[in-house]
C-alpha cells in the first residue's frame, strides 16, 4: 500500500463528438468515468470496468477502444466519438437505423458499445484489415457473417441479440457500399 493519500489531478483537453473540453481530471479516472461523470455523456456504458464486455466501446482517434481501460490523463488531446456523436443531428447513422430495423438490442445497455464497435469495425474492413477468420490475407476481406461475428465478439450482449446484431451490421455495411457506389 502506498502513502499517496491526496488525489493527483492533471489538466487535459479532450475533443468529444467535435466539442473541445478543457478538464482537470483525477489521474486515477478512466476515460469512461470522465465521459459519464464529468461530462454527463452517459451513453457509454459501464458493464464490467475491466475491458471484458465492450459496453464502454468508444472511438478514440477513429479507432474503437474500451473507455474503461483508458486512463483519461493518458489521452490528452484525443479526439473521441461516443454513441451521442454517431447521429448527424436528428439523422441517425446507417448502423443506428439498422439496429432498430433488425431489433438488434433488447435492454439496450450494450447497444452504445455495439454501435461504436460496429462503426469502427466497418472502417477497419474498409481499410482492408484482416481478422482471425479471414481466409485470404492477400486480398481485401469480404464481410460475411463469420467475419461480422468474429469482429463483433468483443461486445457481449446478455440479452442474446447477436442474430439481430449480425443482420444489422450486414445491412449497414450494404448501405455503406451502396452510398459509396
Amino acid at each position: 500500500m502506498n502513502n499517496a493519500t491526496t488525489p493527483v489531478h492533471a489538466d487535459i483537453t479532450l475533443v468529444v463528438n467535435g466539442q473541445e473540453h478543457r478538464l482537470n481530471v483525477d489521474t486515477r479516472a478512466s476515460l469512461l468515468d470522465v465521459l459519464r461523470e464529468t461530462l454527463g455523456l452517459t451513453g457509454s456504458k459501464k458493464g464490467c470496468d475491466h475491458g471484458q464486455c465492450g459496453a464502454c466501446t468508444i472511438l478514440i482517434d477513429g479507432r474503437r477502444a474500451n473507455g474503461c481501460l483508458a486512463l483519461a490523463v493518458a489521452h490528452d488531446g484525443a479526439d473521441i466519438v461516443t454513441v451521442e456523436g454517431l447521429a448527424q443531428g436528428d439523422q441517425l447513422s446507417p448502423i443506428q437505423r439498422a439496429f432498430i430495423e433488425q431489433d438488434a438490442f433488447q435492454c439496450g445497455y450494450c447497444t452504445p458499445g455495439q454501435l461504436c464497435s460496429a462503426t469502427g469495425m466497418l472502417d477497419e474492413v474498409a481499410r482492408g484489415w484482416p481478422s482471425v477468420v479471414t481466409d485470404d490475407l492477400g486480398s481485401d476481406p469480404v464481410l460475411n457473417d463469420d467475419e461480422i461475428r468474429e469482429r463483433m465478439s468483443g461486445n457481449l450482449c446478455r440479452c442474446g441479440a447477436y442474430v439481430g446484431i449480425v443482420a444489422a451490421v450486414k445491412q449497414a455495411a450494404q448501405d455503406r457500399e451502396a452510398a459509396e457506389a
Partner: protein
Amino acid sequence: MTERLESREKVTGAARYAFEYPVENVAYAAAVQASVGRGEVVAVDADSVLALPGVLAVLSHENAPKLHDPPDGELALFQSRTVSYRGQFVAVVVGETLETAREGARRLRVEYAAESPDVRLRTDHPDLYKPDKVNPTFPADTEQGEPEDAYGCSAVRVDVTYTTPAEHNNPMEPHTTLAQWNDDGLTLYDSTQGASSVQNIIARVFGLDRTQVRVVSPHVGGGFGSKGSPRPNVVIAAMAARAVGRPVKFAVPRQQMYATTGYRTPTIQRFRVGADSDGRLNAVLHDVVEQTSTVKEFAEQTATPTRVMYQAPHRRTSHRLVALDVPTPSWMRAPGETPGMYALESVMDELAVATGVDPIELRIRNEPDRDPENGLPFSSRNLVACLQEGAERFGWAGRDPAPRARREGRKLVGMGVAASTYPAYMAPNRATARAEPDGTFTIRIAAADIGTGARTTLALIAAETLKADLGDVRVEIGDSSLPKATVAGGSSGTAGWGTAVVRACEALRAELNGGLPAEGLEVSADTTEEVKAREAFSRHAFGAQFAEVEVDADTGEVRVRRMLGVFAAGRIINPVTARSQFIGGMTMGIGMALMEESVMDREFGDYLNRDLAQYHVPSCADVRDVDAVWVEESDPHLNPMGAKGIGEIGIVGAAAAVGNAVHHATGVRVRSLPITPATLVPRL
C-alpha cells in the same frame, strides 16, 4: 411488426439507466466484501480511511443505523458482526468521487475471526432438509402410485444423475441504485424488475410508509431474475445517502455481483424412469438436491416441470436443500424449468436410445391428455405440434439415429431435440387509461421493461383495445408512483399487466361513449377479482428445441451450427420482440450447455470466477444460425389477449437439445454441464 418504442433513445445513448440521473451534489459508494468464508467481523479500521481526503463516511456494523424490518438476511446490511459467506458486504465507503470511494474501500482494513466454511453441495450432506415449499409456492414433494415398485418392474429402466453448476445471471447493467432523501422521503433510481415491490420492501426496511418511497426505473439493462427483488445495493445506497446527507449512487462492480446479486443454484438430479419396450413411461422419479444460503432460503423448483410434461401412472418428485456458507441463490431465467428440463429432456433422449424409439415419437407417445399430476385439463397444449413443425423445418426426417454416424473431416456432426415448457402465470395488477384532451391516450402502470419489449407490447394491447393508432398511445412504466404492478418475472408481464391495461382501456371506451370532457377522462382497473375468479386449468406454454452441433474430434470443441426453437405460447402480440425474446433465451441456453459455470472455492468460499473473462457467456461468434418460430395457438382460458409468457421458455430445453446433439454426434453422454473440451476429450 412493431419496433420498440424506446428504440431511438437506446441507439442514441439518451435512454437513462439508474446511475445516469443528473442529481446535484451526488456522492459515490464503494462496498467492501468479507474476505473470510464464515465467522465474525472483529474490527473495522474506519479512522484511517476517514482520514483520506474526500472520504465522507465509512459504514459497517460498528456504526450503521439499525434497520427497521429487513425481510431477510440479504437486506440486513451491516446489522451484525456475523459473516455468513465470503463476499458478503461488510462495509461501505462513501466518497466525493468514484475514485476516492474505491480507494477508500480498497484500503479499509477489516479484521475477522474466521471459521471454516461449509460450501460443498453433496447428496450425502447430513443437513439436507425438505423445504416447506419450493419457489414460489409449490409443494417440495409429490407422489402418485407406487413409483419405486413400478420402476423396479419396468421393462426398460434408466437410472442416471445429472448435475448442473451454479450459473450467474450477469445482466449487462450491474445492479445499481441512486438514492436521494428529501423532505417527502426517499427517491431511488434503481435498476429493478419491479418498482412497486422495491417500494414496498425498502419502505419496510427503513420503517417508512410506502408512499414515502419512490422508485424510478424506466430503463433497466437486463435482469433475468437477478433484479426481481431488491438486492443489497438498494439498502447500501439508501443508508449511505442518509448518512452523508447527500444523494449517493452505487453500482455493484461486476466482480462483486457474483456473491451479492443472486445466481442459479447448482443442482444434483437423480432420475429413474421406467418404460415398456415401446417407450411408454410407467414410472418417473425425479429427486433433486440443491443449495441455499444460511441467510435466506431460496428453494429452486427444479422438479416441477417433471410434474406436467409426460404421462406415467407412477411418479415422484422431491427437492432437498442444504443451507451452506455460500452466497444466496435466487431467480435466474426460468428457475426450476431450466435445470429440471435439462435433466428430464436429456433422460428422455437416453430412453429413446435405450428403446430404439425416435426421440420425437417417444415424446408423442408419452403425451398426457390432461395434467398428469393435478388432473386438470390443459388450457391448451401444443407440444406435439411444435415437435412436428420443428422436425419438418429442421430436416429431422433424414437423421440417422445411430450416434457418431456423421463425420466431416475432423468434425463429428449430430442433431438433437428437446421439449420446453413454462407455466402461464398471471397475477393481479392495476392500470389507468386516460383520454387526453388532444385525443391521444396515456396508459400508466408500474410495469418494467428490462429489454423484453413490454413497453411496446402494452402499447399495442392498449391501441387494439382502444381501437386507436399506436402513435396516439403513450405508455408510462417503470415508476412506483404509477398504478401498482407485479415484477417482470415468471414470464407473467404480458398476461398480468396486459389484462389490467385491457380492462382499463375497455372501461375508458365505455365511459367515452358519453363524450370526452374538456379536461380529459381517466379510468382505472384492478384485476384482483378477475385473477381470483379464473377457472381451474393447467396453463403452460410448450416448445421444441432443435440443435445441430459439430464436435472437433481432436480438440473436443463443440460448436452449435444451427438451432431452431418452435414455440406454442398463445397469441404472439409483437412478433419482432417475441422472436428476440425466444432467440435470446436460446442463446443463453447455448451458454448453459457449453460454457457457463461458476466454480465454488471449496477452501475459502465464494465463486472463483468472478468476471466476464472467467465466467463465459456466449459471444457473437458463438451464436450462428439461431432462429425461433411459433405455431398458431388460440387459448380462450388465459387472459383477454390470449397470450402466454415468452421471456423464459426460450432457455428451457435448449441445453438438453445441445447435449443430445453432442451425444448424437459423438456417442458420448455428458451428464454434467457445461459440456467442455475438458469433459469431452478424454471420452472421444
